[in-house]
């Protein structure tokens, strides 16, 4: 996961989404431990308060749970929960951009569909 300062998204959101990506790709398994606030902030060179804010978002959504004195863990069922959430935003985040770029290049919707099918096959 990369923190990009130029990104329009605030850093705490980037942290939360980075952890989400880790859970979705299996980097952080359900019931498995995730890095501590200190590890996250040192690694990404960010203020611990920012890292905490990002993690708190995930705690509020029930994706991450804290065990006092032990650490932070991925809640069971997080993967399917996150998939559902990401699917809801898939159109906003990906399709709109894809179509905008395609229009710029004068690619028709038929051509895009063809490419998508090719993408699935590769």
């Amino acid at each position: 996961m990369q923190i990009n300062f130029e990104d329009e998204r605030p850093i705490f959101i980037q942290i939360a989404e980075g952890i989400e990506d880790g859970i979705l790709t299996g980097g952080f398994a359900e019931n498995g431990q995730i890095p501590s606030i200190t590890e996250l902030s040192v690694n990404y060179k960010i203020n611990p308060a920012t890292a905490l804010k990002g993690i708190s978002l995930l705690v509020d959504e029930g994706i991450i749970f804290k065990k006092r004195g032990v650490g932070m863990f991925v809640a069971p069922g997080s993967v399917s929960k996150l998939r559902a959430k990401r699917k809801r935003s898939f159109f906003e985040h990906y399709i709109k951009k894809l179509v905008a770029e395609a229009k710029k290049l004068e690619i028709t919707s038929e051509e895009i569909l063809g490419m998508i099918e090719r993408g699935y096959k590769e």
Partner: protein
Amino acid sequence: MNGIEVNNVSKNFGDTLALNQVSLNFEPNKIYGLLGRNGAGKSTLLNIITNRLFPDDGTVTIEGLIGTENDVAQKKVYMMSEKNLYPKSMTCQEVFKWSKLFYPNFDLEYATKISNQFGLGLHKKIRTLSTGFSSIFKIVIALSVNTPYVLFDEPVLGLDANHREMFYKMLIEKYSDASFTAIISTHLIEEVATILEHVMIIKNGEILINDSCESLLSSGYTVSGTAQQIDAFILEKVVIATDTLGGLKTATVMGNIDKDIVPLGLEITGLDLQRFFIKLTNEE
């Protein structure tokens, strides 16, 4: 009262007004950035807080105690200054030992550990240290004193990229371990922005910005696209800077953005802090 309070402090050097009625509050356990161009008044302010300079007017209190000529108050504060004030014939290790006499919570073991990580030779004499290692030597002390307030005046002066990275990471680690107030004075805003919780920008002895880093970053954005599109888009918006490259244009815009009304083809990115800072602190 907690924290360091600077109340209406003014300072003149001859007919130069270095600080003009500055009032600030540094709360406990936060990381502050004090940003400004050379000569803006950063060091003067830090020197007044640490009683190395007397203000012409105004007061500084440290946890409720008057900071001027007050050892009890000053023991709570450590300042890593740009200048090297240590005896040049001493070795690094000797200075560390002396530091423990003045700052009883000085952690010798930690100082030795991070000196090794930086590659600072403990038996080297202060006079033989290069610019970079002279900074590192002062950083080691600042990170080891364990006072509730640590002031860093241009801490990364002469440090290479690796050592700068190490310093920032150690600072965060230290801060996560046992919170303290860090005030970092610098003009390298991009580098420290992610670490800071609160930003103060000073220009010509006056405070221009005193805000949380997050709200500062969300106070504007950068938009790029074709010159024609950008010109239409930025109409009636507060634009602090534009760059044109052929038919393309980039604008730094203040204010919030409604993502739903961004025309197709325009690219929105975060506020360019460096550009914002340069624009803000430029002499008109």
